[in-house]
């Protein structure tokens, strides 16, 4: 059980303040969608929560411990980070990529548990048939599954994902976003989601980031009707009820 909490995070880079005293408390389980307009600081927040970037001030607690006090290996095993863009420098085979994910934090390569985990991940993400294929030969959907397998093969209690499905077609995007949200049942899954309809449909909780601060935060069902959502994106949303949930249709406020 690993809860994550951020207190008064401030991140400045090149004169711009990307996070302005942001605080956020995340439970040990649950699926959280992080939404907000471009430049709101979503990626920066995720990287700070993952320990990949250090804030100028403020602190992150993971499972009751200061993130900065965790060893690199412990951090890597606790927090899975799924980047927005991933492009390995060398054209590795699918199986080797997943194995590198399983061996994170310096687990010995002969370790049986990581070997079994690789097999399970290959089966789970339907990569058995592709295991010898090289990265450069994969389609967009296939490489997204490989990335998922790489990060989730070690089954981290916390997952931080950065719009991993943004460039995929709708079926693959649904599959990826659903898989990420489903982890929230017994773990913590925080996902930056571009598609607002997917965010409100599949996630328990939605956090709206604007200008380096939390503009709104609450259960997806409640936040959907919140007018702060319109203000955050600078548009007027029409909420259209459907059998499966709601659709947000945006129009510009000036129209």
């Amino acid at each position: 059980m690993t809860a994550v909490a951020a207190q008064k995070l401030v991140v400045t880079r090149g004169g711009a303040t990307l996070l302005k005293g942001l605080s956020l408390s995340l439970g040990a389980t649950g699926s959280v969608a992080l939404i907000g307009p471009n430049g709101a600081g979503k990626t920066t927040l995720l990287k700070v929560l993952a320990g990949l970037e250090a804030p100028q001030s403020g602190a992150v607690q993971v499972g009751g411990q200061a993130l900065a006090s965790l060893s690199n290996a412990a951090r890597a095993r606790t927090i899975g980070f799924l980047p927005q863009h991933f492009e390995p420098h060398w054209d590795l085979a699918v199986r080797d990529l997943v194995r590198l994910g399983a061996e994170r934090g310096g687990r010995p390569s002969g370790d049986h548990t990581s070997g079994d985990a690789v097999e399970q991940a290959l089966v789970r993400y339907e990569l058995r048939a592709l295991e010898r294929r090289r990265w450069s030969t994969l389609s967009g959907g296939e490489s997204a599954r490989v990335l998922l397998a790489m990060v989730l093969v070690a089954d981290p209690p916390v997952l931080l994902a950065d719009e991993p499905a943004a460039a995929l077609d709708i079926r693959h995007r649904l599959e990826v976003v659903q898989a990420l949200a489903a982890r929230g049942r017994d773990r913590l899954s925080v996902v930056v989601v571009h598609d607002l309809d997917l965010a409100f449909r599949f996630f328990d909780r939605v956090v709206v980031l604007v200008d380096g601060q939390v503009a709104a935060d609450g259960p997806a069902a409640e936040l959907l009707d919140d007018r702060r959502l319109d203000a955050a994106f600078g548009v007027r949303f029409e909420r259209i009820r459907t059998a499966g949930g709601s659709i947000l249709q945006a129009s510009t406020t000036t129209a």
Partner: protein
Amino acid sequence: MKPWLALGAALVLAIVVAACAGHDWVSPAALWRVIDGDRDLGSRLLFDWRLPRVLAAGCVGALLGLGGAIFQGVFRNPLAEPYLLGSAGGAALGATVALLVPLALPQSLLLPILAFAGAWGATLLVLGIARVAGAVDAAGLLLAGVAVAAILGALRSFLMLALSDETVSLQIVLSWVLGGVQTPTWPVLGLLALITLGCTGLALLLAGRLDVLGLGETMARAFGLDVTRFVAVAVLAGSVVVAAAVAFGGLVAFVGLAAPHIARWLVGPLHRALLPASALVGAIVVTLADAIARAALPPAEIPLGLVTAVAGGPFFILLLSRRLRA
């Protein structure tokens, strides 16, 4: 298994061919008589002069291949090469100082130490310049490397002009700068072989982390790698390898660039296999290049660095054009 057998067979063949080649060509049968223990004059010449030279060339080649593979892994850049990144130039400057400047320590000790210091310093300098300029990509590194290599080359030339006199021959420094394996005594060859094996072992310690680094800096950090520290350690290790290669073989261009590429075609990009395969390919290439250097224009000898540059230059241009098109 197949590529390893092929590499092993190719290395044995290269050694046999190189041992037969030279000012006076000998038959493989004559080689066999040497190995069998025959010590008449011809066999003695082969045993004392040609065989150590051939094996030393193989070791230098292995070190160059290894150094290239480490640097390409650290810089995550298939165009990285000790010669182009300035580390070989730094080693050469250090070695020139050792050869020309009268210092308190004996030259045999000073040369490897200064070669290492030069290689390490130059690599850190290139890395630092590229970082400050915000250009840690292929082009940025290569440009920084070219600039540093040019400066180091000028310094080296200046030292050669200013410091050489009747007591220290320019010829020694020049032949060494142009690249060339000196014929070692058997004990020195043994030392070189030990260094080569040690460097291979050292490189293999980095293999897993080089693979993780190859996933990109963000992913490597997310997977628990302390990227900054590892890059520093790996550059240090790469500099040790390059310094050893330069100390025994002078400036030999392009082997460090080509060997890892050929090895990648044969065994794939995972460093556990790539590092030893690069060493084998480098050994094969330099053994053959040294044979050409000795045998092509008898009785003169072509500097080894010129042979590899003539062969390797076009290879680099090919790589560069393929990369620019991609």
